[in-house]
């Protein structure tokens, strides 16, 4: 790997060498009769409090899953520490997403789901963005390469900018999509524009005819194209009608 994100020596769980796997009593079992609130706290939450102090705002246990609320400014450090520390080793990023509540007074939450494969632990890290604040969160792409598309999707759906992501573009919607961010609560389920306008824009987008400037630079083809083709490709206009 070019810039190795796993700085400390890292051994993946190889069959037969996982911690606690040799001992049948230590093997995980299906969770049963999980309480709504309370229950066993993930030991990593206590370790986080010790390491980060006031940056860890709250620890919740809901349905047996530990949620740690952290300051947005320290979120990257927290995740980096969880990844690097030898007693934590949260080496697997399950998911990055955001939650906006129907109650518009509630802050928007950015959620990271992390797994520690060697210790078989699961933790949810949350950072909140108060209303009126910039929709920004630190990117964890430099820690987990798997965050690439997860963050791009979150940006695409919520308009949440991940600072530090190398290539934050729309992923599921096309690049010229103008209606906004579909998973925001102020976005109506049927879209902002009328059906006919949506159809017109979707047909006009013609994403297959559109190559980004970056892609065209691959072949040095862009400069060789006729002027009108350059203009059409640049705007993503539908060709051949």
């Amino acid at each position, binding site marked *: *790997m070019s810039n190795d994100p796993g700085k400390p020596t890292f051994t*993946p769980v190889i*069959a037969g060498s996982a911690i606690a796997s040799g001992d049948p009593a230590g093997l995980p079992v299906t969770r049963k009769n999980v309480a709504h609130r309370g229950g066993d706290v993930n030991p990593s939450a206590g370790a986080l409090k010790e390491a980060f102090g006031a940056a860890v705002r709250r620890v919740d246990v809901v349905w047996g899953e530990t949620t740690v609320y952290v300051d947005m400014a320290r979120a990257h450090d927290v995740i980096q520490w969880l990844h690097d520390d030898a007693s934590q080793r949260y080496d697997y990023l399950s998911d990055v997403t955001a939650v906006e509540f129907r109650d518009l007074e509630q802050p928007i939450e950015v959620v990271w789901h992390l797994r520690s*494969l060697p210790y*078989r632990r699961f933790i949810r890290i949350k950072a909140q963005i108060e209303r009126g604040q910039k929709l920004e969160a630190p990117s964890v792409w430099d820690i987990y390469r798997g965050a690439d598309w*997860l963050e791009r999707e979150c940006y695409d759906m919520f308009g949440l900018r991940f600072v530090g992501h190398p290539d934050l573009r729309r992923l599921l919607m096309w690049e010229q999509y103008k209606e906004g961010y579909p998973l925001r609560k102020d976005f109506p389920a049927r879209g902002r524009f009328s059906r006919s306008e949506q159809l017109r824009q979707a047909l006009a987008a013609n994403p297959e005819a559109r*190559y980004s400037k970056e892609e065209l630079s691959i*072949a040095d083809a862009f400069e060789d194209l006729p002027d009108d083709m350059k203009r059409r490709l640049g705007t993503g206009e539908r060709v051949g009608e």
Partner: protein
Amino acid sequence: MATTKRTVEVELSTTGVDAQGRPQRVPLAVDESGNVLTLAAPAQIEPELEGEHMLINIGPQHPATHGVLRLVLELDGETVVRCIPHIGYLHCGFEKMGEYRQYNQIIPYTDREDYLNSPGNNVAFALGAEMLFGIEITERCKVLRVMLCEMSRIISHLVWLGTTCIDIGAYTPFLWAFQQREKIYELFEAWIGARLTTTFTRVGGMGADIPDGWLEGLTAFTHNFPKVVDEIDRIITRNGIWVGRTVGLGVMSPEEAVNYGLSGPMVRASGVAFDVRRDFPYLDYETYDFDVPVGTNGDVYDRFLIRMEELRQSTRILEQTIKRLPDGPVNVNDHRVVLPPKSKATSDMESMIHHFKQVMEGPRPPIGECYVAVESPKGEKGYYMVSDGSPKPVRWRIRPPSFVNLSAIPRMVEGHLLSDVIAINASIDIVMGEIDR
């Protein structure tokens, strides 16, 4: 790029056995009298290519991209320098629509994301919703759900096997695989009524119990299926062409595989024994006896071996479910979440009220959130649900395994040949319905 050296003993063009019963090895070309022909390649003039890179666009309408995936490739000659994937052609906004539906009404959407694993998705969603409602399902329901999960794992792997064989140029295993897949679909049809989009679980139970005599059909399947797996094993595992087209391609080291968030057969092929069924168990999977196959090289060939072994392990789990299936009710006895039987709803006042309340308003989970992950055939499939106490979720997030697996394709194809892109892409086992949602 990691270099891999591995030796796979292959059988070359075995057309039959000789008088002693040993396999006959016949060279690829002989003349009428049986002499080996040496084929000289015709002289070709190398075209002037210089160092200019070329842009190639694969998809979105291309059979080898398994759906509407578009890959823009930068080529140096035939070698891939860079790959830029484009997705989203099948985006339907399932997560948005889920915010306007009651929990039971979301289950049909889960069929349509990873449509090769519909029952498995139904089970995953129901498990998540039950966690959110705080429901403990019955023992019989648990075993029936394990049955559904493993049957759909077999289907999904068979489709993967068949289509990948076609991508790489083998046609026969495709027919064998689809024949067996049809047998499972017949079992689904007899139990569920539907084949592809099953919508079979409910929050707190299942749509129906298995019909009388259905287990005999499943027993027959588990009896016959391993023979077919062995046969497919015999025809391709040591086949020279198959080995030549899969070994050493798309190698991911264990550290990389974990860092890129790969899951399922993809991460296990790299040597990381991460299986949600084992490490974060659900549905009492820890009480079943099965092995988690782990690869050594992390190439396309290893991913194939892992999936072949998982077919056998799933059959083993199915055999155990048949043996242990307990009697008892399938649905929990709580008519605030599970619909009362139709006959009672039309004759009994209280049942009618429950029926009305559930259909018109929907059951309300307490305020809370949960992330429930299962081992789908593609990897870790997670549903993250947030409830604000209303009958509809505030947020319903799908963690699609093949989405994360596919995001590593630029890393996997760089440095390989254009024709290998097809094999590597096939090895990821993508379903675009799940990736775009």
